[in-house]
């Protein structure tokens, strides 16, 4: 199969599959209530998935070919602490990017 055909196949199947994943419970369960144990588990979905998704990107950033990078590590910590403190995503993003750029600038001066 040509590269072009491979790309279009992945776009189509990944699109359909991802939509079906998103529709799964929204489409089937609708107004039916989930049992208590399920809601108790699902309450922790965001804090169970996103930190795990992020952790390898922070510890082994692809941009540095997986080498631990001080500016990126500090930027992640700043976003985490400011986000938890201010309870606000924009503050977290602002703090993270500010620390990242300050760190990269300092690194370029030292390096």
């Amino acid at each position: 199969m040509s590269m072009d055909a491979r790309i279009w196949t992945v776009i189509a199947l990944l699109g359909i599959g991802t939509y079906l994943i998103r529709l799964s419970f929204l489409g089937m369960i609708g107004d039916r209530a989930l049992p208590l144990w399920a809601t108790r588990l699902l309450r922790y979905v965001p804090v169970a998935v996103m930190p795990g998704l992020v952790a390898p990107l922070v510890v082994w950033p692809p941009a540095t070919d997986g080498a631990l990078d001080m500016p990126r590590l500090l930027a992640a910590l700043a976003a985490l602490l400011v986000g938890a403190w201010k309870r606000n995503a924009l503050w977290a993003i602002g703090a993270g990017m500010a620390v990242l750029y300050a760190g990269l600038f300092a690194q370029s001066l030292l390096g």
Partner: protein
Amino acid sequence: MSHRNWSAFRLGLREGLPFVLVIIPFGALFGVAATEAGWSLAQSLSMSIFVIAGASQFTALQLLGDHAPLAIVILTSLAVNLRMAMYSASLAPLLGAQPFWKRAIVAYLLVDQTYGLVMANEETGPRMTPAERIAYFLGTAAAICPWWYAASIFGAVAGTAIPAALALDFAVPITFIALFAPALRSLPHIAAAFVSVAAALAFAAVPYNLGLLIAAALAMVTGALVETLLERRRAEAVR
């Protein structure tokens, strides 16, 4: 749309807007990477429209570039998106008995940011009816999703002209952190996040992105267990 639904929509629109700042670099980065990998503009844009899921789009791009078998490319990218089944399940009871076509539209627009915002609104925002929640959700999607498509076009066209010094690669992790950090306000939430990080790093070598799914399952159980233990202790203290 009723007055209350309209104001919920506008609230969603307003609270979604800050994420445009990170959606644009994230989407542009995908366009740039796809162009560099030899994708056409139509292919980059189609994937952003049909899949709208950055992490899995990058996964698919990477694996296609590595000449992985098609089945592995698709399964691995879908595995990255399995978290959305959990989003779908936790959102379903909040929307209640809404018509199927509305839930079908919500499903299409269910991305990390819109989901994160609607759940955060549930915890800290005004109390809403299911119809208002949908209006709020559509507001966040209207603020965020069009920029995802636009940024993919921009990135594909601008291509390699964006300097690496902007370190846009790290806008992605910072976005995810900004989405979950405000939720770290109780011991069960913190415990779950801690287990998620530790397990995701420990299981990073597990193939096909299954490590993340294992970590998420362990973290969810941890959160629920800590919550149950705290509740039991509180009940004993009262007695």
